[in-house]
């Protein structure tokens, strides 16, 4: 069996007042499109931050078969955060400069961007339809356009793993559909692995292969997307710890 892209084993994380992640274990294989869902405060973003090394949890995390503490090929992973579009809009930086940042980690000290690198920037910007705006100041763009630029930055390195943490939060609804169309385009490369934290699993259900549903920091459910839509009433009740009814439509549970 191939080495998993991500291995999470018994990972827990505590904030001073409460436990946010509780003994979470799962694996992500190459080519999977994993959606992480759950209520607000269920630990989704904390889990992502642990995977990315921004937080230091208890337990073991392995990336591409290597222990996270020894992992150094961070350029293989790209990350689009929910805060991406919440940057200082007055910052004097062009679209092209932002996308170039995606290449910086691979470049050593004193190394400047080569012609090849500039071609990569062009390809990434063309993919998200922003090449024409390459010389615009990022702060002058609309929210949807800015998010496309950040996706281009995440793409420019041709990453093996893309991690997206609620990338459409704060983006105007009319751009959300556009965003998922771009994601669909990226999904054509079946070797690339995706981890997407989302509230709108319905939007992406045809892209998603697997789902992790967190409930109060615990793994409520870890299954394929098909099984996820066919969960029985009792399981659904356990995933949504609020009183409510489970509706059944055409023999399927509608949450």
């Amino acid at each position, binding site marked *: 069996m191939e080495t998993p892209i991500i291995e999470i084993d018994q990972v827990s994380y505590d904030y001073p007042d409460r436990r946010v992640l509780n003994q979470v274990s799962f694996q992500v294989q190459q080519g999977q499109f994993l959606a992480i869902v759950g209520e607000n405060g269920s630990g989704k973003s904390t889990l992502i931050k642990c995977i990315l090394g921004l937080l230091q949890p208890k337990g073991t995390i392995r990336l591409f078969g290597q222990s996270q503490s020894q992992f150094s090929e961070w350029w293989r992973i790209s990350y689009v955060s929910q805060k991406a579009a919440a940057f200082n809009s007055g*910052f004097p930086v062009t679209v092209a400069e932002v996308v170039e*940042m995606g290449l910086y980690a691979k470049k050593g000290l004193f190394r400047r961007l080569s012609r090849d690198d500039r071609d990569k920037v062009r390809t990434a910007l063309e993919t998200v339809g922003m090449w024409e705006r390459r010389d615009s100041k990022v702060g002058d763009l609309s929210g949807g356009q800015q998010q496309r630029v950040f996706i281009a930055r995440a793409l420019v390195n041709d990453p093996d793993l893309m991690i997206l943490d609620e990338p459409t939060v704060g983006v105007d609804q009319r751009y959300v559909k556009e965003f998922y169309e771009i994601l669909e385009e990226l999904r054509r490369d079946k070797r690339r692995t995706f981890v997407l934290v989302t509230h709108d699993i319905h939007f992406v259900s045809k892209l998603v292969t697997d789902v992790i549903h967190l409930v109060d920091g615990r793994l409520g459910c870890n299954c394929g997307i098909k099984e996820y839509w066919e969960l029985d009433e009792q399981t659904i009740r356990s995933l949504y710890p609020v009183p409510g009814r489970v509706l059944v439509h055409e023999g399927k549970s509608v949450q």
Partner: protein
Amino acid sequence: MIEAFMTLKFLQYALVAAILIGFTAPLIGSFVVVRRMSLIADALSHVTLAGIALSLLISGMVAQLADLNPLYLGIVTAVIAALTIDWLRSKYKHFQELAIPIIMATGMGLGATFISLANGFSMDLVSFLFGTVSAVALTDVYTILAVTVVVIIFVFAFYKELLFLSFDEEQARVSGIRLRLVHILFMIVVALVIAISMRIVGILLVSSLITLPVAAALRIAKSFKMTIFLAIIFGEIATVLGLVLAYQFDLAPGGMIVLLAVIELIIVMLLERFWIGGKTHEDEHRTSA
């Protein structure tokens, strides 16, 4: 007047120092401003005053150290203060700005005490407060040149990392960039630039030379490279012209340089309003948001 600059050694030293400072201060200032650390420059300059005052006090007391260049101790205290500010910011994670008044107060307290111990303000000290045209020594020029070289090497080596860190710290960290190292080196370089700049601009005005040319550049630049380029142009015009005017009218160069930088900023804002359509990029963004 041009003849004076051609023949008088002290004027040549001052001019070379002004050209170097007009380059380094806005260069590093571009990163200081976008990292929202402008006030740190103020705090560091006030601490540098303590180092300068201590050096002048020691020179007055110890005959063997009478010729000690106060710039050296100024540089040392600025670097120590920069690292302390950084440490304090880590201690007050939710009130990071507190580090600035703490360090500024310490610097001013020490400075005032050393000045009293040295029996008040000497001409030397006044020249450090507001800059000097006549007292730039050859050793000052060498020190300023050495720091300029360090700054250029630093920016050349870490440009990518600094820009990424300034724009998006979380992403920069995820991409594996050694942020802590870059940040500490940055703080040291900022301290060095502040210490050398005060010879021409003066302690009380040095932070203006770091921020004002960048403030003007920010109004018109779309890219970060253009911001740096314009800031340096504005910085050079202000320092060189300010020095020349200060000599001509026998004024403190610090005041002239900073006033010119303010005038540049006003001109840029007026041009922006009347020639570039009356709306700034930020205003446009606010309207569209």
